[in-house]
């Protein structure tokens, strides 16, 4: 078992190459933000939403990945029409469906308290919920496939899957948020 080798060198060697690749992907996400800087300054609610939408989607993914990984280590999970797998996917989508509207309301409230909101509550709710649901579907697909690939290649899912999922969510989160914002705002 890979997780048995806990030397500094082994852990660094297992994680650093992935981290460097993911960092380059994140720079891509940063360039998207850079390109949207004018829109972000115009609608501060969107700026507040950026870490929240990305963070919540990333949380859902890493929670799902972490649970699946432990189930694999313990030997209770098999891929296929498995009640454990389907239940995890369903629970994750339900969580997204209830959390994202709340996140939108929170972002609207926060910008109302701090300064003048330039976006109405209804629009913020639609932006948050729509980007949340789209992202949740992406999260589930990416997490389950990444865990499956890591498992098939006999890599430790703990090392590979969570970084992949959170970073895909970051880049796609920024893109999805702005695509939805362009449609709604």
């Amino acid at each position, binding site marked *: 078992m890979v997780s048995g080798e806990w030397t500094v060198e082994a852990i660094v060697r297992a994680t650093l190459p992935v981290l460097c690749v993911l960092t380059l992907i994140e720079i891509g996400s940063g*360039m998207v933000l850079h390109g949207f800087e004018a829109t972000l300054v115009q609608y501060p609610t969107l700026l507040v939403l950026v870490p929240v939408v990305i963070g919540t989607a*990333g949380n859902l993914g*890493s*929670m799902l990945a972490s*649970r699946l990984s*432990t189930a694999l280590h313990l030997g209770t999970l098999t891929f296929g029409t498995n009640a454990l797998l389907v*239940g995890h996917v369903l*629970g994750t989508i339900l969580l997204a469906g209830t959390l994202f509207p709340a996140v939108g309301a929170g972002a609207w409230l926060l910008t109302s308290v*701090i300064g003048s909101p330039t976006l109405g509550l209804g629009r913020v709710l639609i932006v948050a919920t729509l980007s949340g649901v789209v992202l949740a579907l992406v999260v589930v697909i990416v997490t389950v496939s990444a865990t499956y690939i890591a498992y098939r290649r006999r890599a430790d899912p703990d090392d590979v899957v*969570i970084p992949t999922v959170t970073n895909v969510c970051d880049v796609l989160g920024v893109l999805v948020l702005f695509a939805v914002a362009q449609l709604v705002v």
Partner: protein
Amino acid sequence: MSVRGVAATVYREGVGALGVSSVGSLLAGSLLGGLETELQRLPGLLVLVPALLATRGNVYGSLGARLATALQQGLLTPTLRSHDRRLYNALVAALCTGLFTSVFAAVATVVVLWLLNAAVAPASLVAVSFLAGLASGIVLSATVTGVVFVGYRRGLNPDTLVGPVVTTTGDVFGMMFLYLAARVVLAW
């Protein structure tokens, strides 16, 4: 367990932690709004923000997941008093990779912006990255280890705790130390 039973467990164990972490991310979002001046005085900083926040989540999320799995496999005891060599190795490895990745992100940002002929402050960006990476690394490794150990001892599922705790504290501390590092470098 049935599909419905598993889904209900996932929901029940996740909703509290995710709710709390959303509040944390909202705070990070308002901190991002407060960085306006620094973003203008340090061109390239906005490009670096997702990479630095993600590095916090990646490195310390991986550390948390590693500790959670090891606890459940019985390879690790949830106490600092045992002076477990494995625990120290995992912490040192996380700090080293976190620092290296932060500096790498700054260098990559400088190169990309330089290739695009955009305004960029090379030395300041690397310095901000290094300082923010060091400070948040120390705080986050302590937080992650503490939460996973205490949570496990209290009978909570450490896997459910890791993601939300790391993303919340990673976002809030990451943004806070990024802000402080930017102020320190600008005042230099």
